[in-house]
């Protein structure tokens, strides 16, 4: 496969993890502007485990998952009494706090004559896992698509489950949820933690693919984009955020003539969606209709 195409597709796949992570928070009715920080945590942890500790990539990604989940769990516990605007602002602050911490993190070691490890704003270079294991662009694309597919299958299972319906009830109408005996806090913490795990994993793959990471990569705009993918794609299905990713990165960023206008076009697109179809392309209603048409059980 053409390496450029492969790298664009890989990029889309990796950002999809972040978009799904933002989607999971939206399910429980909250808006997070901070998922990029947990993506960053995953990236730094994976880089540290593979480069500094010479650990196996499985361990590295597992560490990223646990690290991302732990980060969001802390955020969730800190904001346990907040919701709406206040929660959103807190996620933004928390994410920036983490990014600034990464800017201050210097832990370099000389290994085989190379300076390795996180080096403040310079970032973390020489993450050589894909070179050491002779992965080319296509191989890595296959790896990340496989991981994303597995995640999507898990999410489809979740989407059909009682748990998801309960979480949506918590997200849409916490009073109704409580009147049905559901504790909103449990669902919120659970989904927010899950979102961190997904972001961490995606960040881990991102670090392996990019071979160099730095704090500036995990800025607010990354998180804002991740969030808007669900607004465009819709919350009715885990496919929703993917549609947003394909539209933004697949169409806008990758077509070079459009790339310069990406922010304008994409911002306009988001604005149009918010006005004309705030529930996104794949709304719950549309998904239910499609299921009905394909003869699935109604209830």
């Amino acid at each position, binding site marked *: 496969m053409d390496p450029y195409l492969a790298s664009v597709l890989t990029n889309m796949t990796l950002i999809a993890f972040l978009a799904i992570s933002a989607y999971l928070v939206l399910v429980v009715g909250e808006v997070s502007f901070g998922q990029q920080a947990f993506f960053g945590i995953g990236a730094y942890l994976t880089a540290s485990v593979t480069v500094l500790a010479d650990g196996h990539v499985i361990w590295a990604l597992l560490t990223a998952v646990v690290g991302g989940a732990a980060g969001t769990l802390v955020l969730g516990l800190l904001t346990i009494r907040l919701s709406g605007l206040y929660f959103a602002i807190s996620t933004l602050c928390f994410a920036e706090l983490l990014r600034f911490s990464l800017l201050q993190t210097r832990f370099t070691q000389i290994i085989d004559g190379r300076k390795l490890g996180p080096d403040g704003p310079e970032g973390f270079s020489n993450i050589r896992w894909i070179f050491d294991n002779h992965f080319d662009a296509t191989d890595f694309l296959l790896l990340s698509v496989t991981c994303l597919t597995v995640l999507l299958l898990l999410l489809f299972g979740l989407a059909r489950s009682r748990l998801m319906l309960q979480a949506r009830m918590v997200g849409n109408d916490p009073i109704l949820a*409580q*009147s049905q*005996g559901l504790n909103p806090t449990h669902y919120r913490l659970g989904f927010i933690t899950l979102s961190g795990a997904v972001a961490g994993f995606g960040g881990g793959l991102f670090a392996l693919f990019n071979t160099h990471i730095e704090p500036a990569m995990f800025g607010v705009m990354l998180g804002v984009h991740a969030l808007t993918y669900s607004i465009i794609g819709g919350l*009715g299905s885990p496919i929703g955020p993917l549609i947003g990713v394909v539209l933004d990165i697949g169409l806008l960023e990758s077509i070079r003539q459009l790339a310069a206008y990406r922010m304008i076009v994409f911002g306009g697109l988001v604005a149009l969606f918010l006005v004309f179809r705030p529930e996104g392309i794949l709304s719950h209603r549309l998904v239910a209709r499609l299921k009905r048409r394909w003869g699935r059980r109604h*209830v």
Partner: protein
Amino acid sequence: MFSMQGICKSFGGIEVLSDISLTLQSGDRIGITGANGVGKSTLINIATGFLAPDHGWIQLNDLMLTNCPAWEFARAGIRRTFQSSRFLQTATLGEQLFLAGHAPEYRNRLADLLDHSNLQSSLHLFPDEISLPLLRKAEVVRGLVTQPEILILDEPSAGLTADELHQFGTFLNQQLGRKTALVVVEHRLDFMAIVTDTVVEMKLNQGLQVRAD
């Protein structure tokens, strides 16, 4: 069985409830009426855990519920409906009723309730595609399927015609069962006559002792 005693509640220095007591035995059917603003909604919100009382205590069987969150009230068996029917708008009615009655021990009850409610043909619809009388019934089905100790209805007559209200009352009478206690907060005394045994009137800033005769 259920008892709340000496309940007081003020909002910003204005006392809404002063020394209200409510005692329910299994199978009691009590109506509470009263002018606007005497605190009927506040009373419901306290009895279901959505508001914490300033004074007083709430107990169901041996369980102290004072200051517990609303979801614990619901789990303990105190279910309510809302003045404006409350459903998740992004899921079908069927999904929501089957969610409420998902536990194996409730399946038969749910099937039975659905058979008697003419809701079967609306299960695949979203709440905003369903008529108000059916939604009111659906709310009762959702509440009764878990065989609660107490079902509290908040102004079920709102938006219903006399005929619809009568039908709703008949349905409620048929399905309530002998165990569940019923509390109805309502203006319409004709409806109260169908579904309740005792009606009490709340008055502003007056203590109230409610118990079935």
